[in-house]
């Protein structure tokens, strides 16, 4: 156990060093997310003018949604799975397969490093924005809410990892897995509720999106935090997360098993 922690802790450490090495690209990435947050802040402030509620959200709830989305994105969507595509296509993955380390464990540790750095800076950004514009925030009244929120966020992290790990496996069969991956990310952001709460959509569309695994990544945890989920919605939300984790574990596992078999370490 201790040696396992040391092993993957070491991967975490070297990944953090690597991230620090790429400061510029990290800062650009953050600049992008800050821009998105400010754009949404401006957008919703305009819409809320003269109203106290919109799409069932109070003004403080809506702003908490937008800012909370920034933090949750950093926690859940931060990953290095683009690296997996590169490692498979260049054959570098061979070096992980011949060392006594599990590749999925290695990828998780590397992702964790990314999440730590992004989460830290997302908190900083939200804190600056809140104190600068005096944005009203909605804070949960019950500690149980916080607990449920944390649980759903952890499940969301696992779910997202499984999804992107499955998409990465496409690299075993094609050198052009970057395209599907890009589409996946675009659809993901939209369907997860990263651009707006799904309540804005027509009811029929909303129920489809709520069933898909994407909604349980951002929309569901944020709704718990805002105490907008009824006990029934809470239960079905958690069941949905667990169901998709089970399905994707199976899919990801078999995709990787097949992928590794098909793999002939490209590049000679």
């Amino acid at each position: 156990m201790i040696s396992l922690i040391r092993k993957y802790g070491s991967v975490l450490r070297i990944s953090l060093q690597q991230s620090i090495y790429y400061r510029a690209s990290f800062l650009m990435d953050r600049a992008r997310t800050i821009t998105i947050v400010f754009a949404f802040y401006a957008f919703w402030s305009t819409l809320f003018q003269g109203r106290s509620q919109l799409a069932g959200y109070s003004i403080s709830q809506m702003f908490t949604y937008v800012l909370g989305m920034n933090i949750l994105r950093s926690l859940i969507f931060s990953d290095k799975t683009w690296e997996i595509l590169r490692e498979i296509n260049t054959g570098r993955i061979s070096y992980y397969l011949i060392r006594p380390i599990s590749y999925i464990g290695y990828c998780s540790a590397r992702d964790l490093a990314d999440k730590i750095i992004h989460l830290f800076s997302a908190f900083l950004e939200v804190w600056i924005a809140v104190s600068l514009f005096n944005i009203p925030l909605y804070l949960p009244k019950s500690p149980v809410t916080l607990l449920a929120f944390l649980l759903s966020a952890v499940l969301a992290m696992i779910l997202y990892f499984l999804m992107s790990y499955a998409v990465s496996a496409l690299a075993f069969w094609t050198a052009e897995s970057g395209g599907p991956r890009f589409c996946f990310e675009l659809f993901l952001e939209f369907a997860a509720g990263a651009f707006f709460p799904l309540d804005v959509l027509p009811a029929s569309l909303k129920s489809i999106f709520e069933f898909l695994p994407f909604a349980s990544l951002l929309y569901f945890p944020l709704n718990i935090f805002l105490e907008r989920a009824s006990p029934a919605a809470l239960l079905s939300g958690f069941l949905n997360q667990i169901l998709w984790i089970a399905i994707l574990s199976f899919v990801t596992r078999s995709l990787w098993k097949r992928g590794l078999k098909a793999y002939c370490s490209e590049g000679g």
Partner: protein
Amino acid sequence: MEAVRDLSFQIGKGELVGFLGPNGAGKTTTLKLLSGLLYPTAGSLSILGHVPFKRETEFLKKFSMVMGQRTQLWWDLPARETFRLNQKIYEIPDPVFRKRESELIELLELEPLVNLPVKKLSLGERMKAELACALLHEPEVLLLDEPTLGLDLVMQKKLRHFIAEYNRRTQSTILLTSHNMNDVQELCKRVMIIDEGQLIYDGDFDRIIQHFAPDKVVAISSSQPIPMETLKDLGQILSHNGASAKMEVPRQSVSRVLEQLFKRIPLLDLTVEELPIEEIVRRVFLRTRSQSQSQKNLFAPGEWEIQEQEKKGMRERPLPEP
């Protein structure tokens, strides 16, 4: 598609074996099979009693592979950081790690280099760091795929020297592939040659040169045009281009030919080289095909067994008389 078939060999503990063959012969495929990166569709193989593609931790800890064209070092960070990562991956205790690390750094003259980002290193420097990284856990079995590819002569020599020393010191078993005849010549007593996925020679290196490369290549250049007639009786002319020429000369008459050349031609430059490895392999292959079936078993017995046989019938493969 079959990349290798009917390939069977054993390698004993502590042996340093050269693995030769032209591009696409199946060398890399064999290494991938041995390292567990490929699943064999038929046949069996075992290293140190393990089946490689099961990727058991105990096996992986005793094994290492260096691929000349790839790196396991983290590109943007100093090599030392990857060393430390490997320490944890292979679970090497601190004191042992420190001792081995400083030994390797000293032997490979890596001192200031391990603290620089890997991408700032030259190809040769990187290769040295690569080797050090792969040897930190002191593997019992080491596969080297083209370790000297793209390196200058000085660096090639240093690496060869290091590999030979390492083999002597740790009694590790090393299998080395190369296009570079000098690598094999200086390092390996035993050599295996593979072509079109089949083992066509397995035996002493000295014998392969005597038997399959009886000639050397003599290249000359002169201060004035060399008439063809001057060379005709000395050997088989491979190329002739005004004031320079290349010819193939039987090994035993090289000194006589050189003497004649000095007498006949005002020489500017002269080199005597081995035939290119591809050429030797080609000849070995031709010879194998024309030879009658020989049942001679060339395999040396050893602890390390690697066997791969096609399911249907364990056919004896014709091997050249060494």
